């Protein structure tokens, strides 16, 4: 009889422990709400002011040419826009699904949208969700277009500016862009200057992967 009681006691202890932990859990309520985020406001504000997290288009172009691949380039626009044009090597993760993506917390992530707005928002979301290294492409795709794809040189430029432009031109051509020289309001060289950008470079093959990569789907079972 005594032996049987001893045997019973372990499950009973466990049951009491489980009940107790369950009850404390009831008092705690929600351990964390994943829709509400904790933010280190000071660190965030400092990062914003110092502009540490901005990469300009020229730097990115440089990285791309040198095939420096220690970062993941993320296109935050819709998949449709991504399909029309995207910066080479980028991955499409529309901003609404940024937290459900396969991005790793310790990964270097470079974000871009059409301008700075979406990427700044995504930057904030990611930073506050403990992503360590998040960067923004300064000016977004618009800056990429202006500075890399369709750089313009005023005809009345100084010699210095012209030499600088030669370098930009090479970069631009590398990415299939159309450098232009503008004289007195009308652009010569290739196309007439219009508000509409000259033809966007065609996507060579699938430049990036849609939906954060066609990785093998995880299954519970």
């Amino acid at each position, binding site marked *: 009889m005594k032996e049987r009681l001893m045997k019973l006691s*372990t*499950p009973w202890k*466990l*049951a009491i422990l489980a009940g107790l932990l369950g009850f404390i859990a009831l008092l705690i309520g929600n351990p964390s709400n994943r829709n509400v985020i904790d933010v280190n406001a000071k660190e965030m504000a400092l990062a914003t002011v110092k502009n540490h997290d901005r990469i300009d288009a020229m730097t990115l172009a440089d990285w791309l040419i040198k095939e420096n691949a220690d970062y993941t380039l993320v296109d935050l626009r819709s998949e449709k826009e991504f399909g029309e044009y995207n910066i080479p090597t980028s991955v499409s993760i529309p901003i609404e699904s940024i937290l459900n993506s396969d991005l790793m917390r310790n990964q270097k992530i470079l974000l871009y949208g059409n301008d700075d707005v979406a990427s700044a928002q995504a930057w904030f979301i990611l930073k506050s969700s403990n992503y360590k290294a998040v960067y923004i492409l300064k000016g977004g795709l618009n800056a990429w277009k202006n500075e890399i794809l369709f750089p313009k040189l005023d005809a009345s430029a100084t010699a210095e500016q012209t030499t600088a432009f030669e370098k930009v031109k090479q970069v631009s051509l590398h990415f299939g862009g159309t450098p232009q020289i503008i004289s007195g309001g009308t652009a010569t060289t290739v196309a007439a200057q219009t508000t509409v950008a000259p033809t966007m470079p065609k996507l060579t093959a699938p430049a990036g992967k849609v939906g954060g*990569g*066609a*990785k*093998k*789907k*995880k*299954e*519970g*079972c």
Partner: protein
Amino acid sequence: MTKEKTYEPKPYSNPYLVGLSLGLVLLAAFLIMGRGLGASGAVSTAVAVGVSKVAPEHASQNNFYKEYLGDEAANPFKDWLVFQILGVIVGGFISGMLTHRVKVTVEKGPNISVRNRLILAFVGGGFIGFGAKMARGCMSGQALTGGAFLNLGSWAAMMAIFAAAYGVAYFVRRQWL
């Protein structure tokens, strides 16, 4: 055939302690990998690879096989669930050896022939295979892993598992009783 008793293997462990250990294993998987346990996923991968070997065109058009084949870059067998199930086989064998429970036999009730038991085992396996994919996970993946996560669909599936099993138990009682 009558029940055979050659020697007494060790009795099975206390179910609550087993459950506690199983829960801790599951928790370890959650904490280390961020995912739970699974079993049928490995078989799915094997089936998908088999189909794509025989009929690559056919497999590449099927959404289900595609999921388990992934992109061509990685070997589909380099998968978490595949290695995990290899571990299950080894772990089960180790425990069976330690407790003298490894024995080539057919588990069945006294009132059914071996042949019929094996037929039913195959049929049951077929149901499970189909159901596991329909429910997006089997007992390990849905009931256990999803259950611990308090996943709504997993609990719904778990209730359906118990309801269906109790409902059908009467009709196959000759197999077990």
